[in-house]
């Protein structure tokens, strides 16, 4: 196998780890949602790339074409994108509500407010 080989998988793995890091490292709740999106996008790339057949074309029957890419992973990922959009929407809606009731979207500050409330009750 010549270099760089199946580099698309390296891209998927890179995005995956970047996304996971972005979910964990920042304190900002919106940035975490962005990280979640990057993480999910990496899975989309993983699915889409596995459907590609080298030299294959779009799966529309036409004369003179014998090799087709597999359309199923692409269709699956359309569903997963919809799920991802819904998750992002719910997540951001929660961040708005958190900002309304805590007055901040920094996790360390929220944690302090939570602990203060716990001690008070």
């Amino acid at each position, binding site marked *: 196998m010549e270099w760089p080989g199946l580099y698309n998988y390296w891209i998927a793995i890179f995005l995956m780890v970047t996304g*996971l890091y972005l*979910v964990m490292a920042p304190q900002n*709740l919106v940035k*975490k949602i962005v990280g*979640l999106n990057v*993480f*999910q996008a990496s*899975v989309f790339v*993983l*699915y889409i790339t*596995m459907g590609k057949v080298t030299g294959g074309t779009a799966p529309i029957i036409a004369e003179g074409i014998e090799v087709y890419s597999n359309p*199923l*992973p692409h269709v*699956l990922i359309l*569903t*997963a994108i919809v*799920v991802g959009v*819904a*998750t992002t929407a*719910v*997540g951001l809606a*929660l*961040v708005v*509500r*958190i900002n309304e*009731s*805590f007055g901040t979207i920094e996790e360390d500050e*929220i944690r302090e407010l*939570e602990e203060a*409330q716990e001690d008070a*009750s």
Partner: protein
Amino acid sequence: MISTHLPALQIILPLLAAPLCVILRNGTLTYWFAVVVAWLAFAVSALLLQEVNAIGVIAYKLGGWAPPWGIEYRIDLLNAYVLLIVSAIGALTVSYAKPSVDQEIGGDRGYLFYTAFLLCLAGLLGVTITGDAFNIFVFLEISSLSSYALIAMGRDRRALIASYRYLVFGTIGATFFLIGVGLLYQMTGTLNIADLGERVAAVGPNRTITVAFGFMAVGLAVKAALFPVHAWLPNAYAYAPSVATIFLAATATKVSIYVLIRTYFTIFHHDFSFGVMALGDIFMVFAVLAMLAGSAIAIFQTDIKRMLAYSSVAQIGYMVLGVSMATVLGLTGGMLHLFNHALIKGALFMAMGCVFYRTGSVSIESMRGLAARMPWTMAAFVAGGMSLIGVPLTVGFVSKWYLLLAAMEQNLWWILVFLIIASLMAIIYVWRVVEAAYFMPSSAGAPTDIQEAPMAMLVPMWVMVLANFYFGIDTKLSVGVATRAAKFLLGDAS
């Protein structure tokens, strides 16, 4: 005939009813509508179980597309049993819901609660009934997204942040599962679970299958809140509205355990999962840690809902312990505990819902002297607590007994010791509440006009409590089905 379409009806009823709730918009009307739909879903799952018992596996082609291309709903004893649990808890919970929802969420926004509730029910039933791995992911997300909304409806502002953390954890968990499904598709070219089972075995273990195995194990462990990755659970249960807690605690993690069983026994054959990959050894360690850590942390909680949530972490340990043994007895014990724990935690959280309805708090302080004012509610808590500990004649005893038998069969004496230690710790944390409620005077500043909870809440709660005793004495249904499902999964035809 309608009876041939029962599998589709199981999902379509709650799924279509949910948007209708938004159109109805009236709190009382949507309540009764949701009650009717939930009980119909229960009737459907009871009929399905009966049919599976009589004729064996039901394979339903959704939209008439033949598997493995179309989505297949495939119902065997295992998921017919889980469907029955989920729909029964759903029906009882929604019957109980009205006073509590009116108070905690408000009559004018109540319809949104029932909408999210029915969507969550549809999602959980969908995960259970489907025979398609990708479909599991989609339904898992339907149920998760609606449960984030349910949790965020809690009155305490900490409910919002609990829901947010659950969203982050839950999405990562579900996406890990999705990565696993993708890698399996890459190796086998199919998404149908029965088909996957055959082809994964045919392909044999290779790097891609092993990686898929790992991703799915981690993803499902997060969704099931197995010990080291349980962090999202306690606050989500503690701050969610009472009714949402009852439903989620009794069903959501159970369905994830079901997917775990399905994945590691049907897709990856159990010889591979537990023999070659030694999944059992790993899960057994985490399960024991969950039992001990969950129970120990529960002892020190002052918020009783959070105490019960940590106890749930421990009980999930019991279930995973049974599964991790991968023997007929162990699997029977695990599945029995799945059924029984749904009844136990349903009853206990319902009692806490009643307490919160009358006192506005579930702290240990507010329990003091409560038995004199709310005798039926606290009696239900005591009965549920006994079941949680595992006193004979309750369901808790039956499942722990099977787990003990399974451990002894394999000469795992150390498990026996830990099972008993965890049960003793359960006595301590249940006793703290009983002591406060029965043997302590009310605290000085407590309101004196507290009455027993309304009938509409007491009746479903006591149905749940009596089920704890009924299935503790007459174990024909629960043990019978669980044993046969375990034998079926392990390919033991006898």
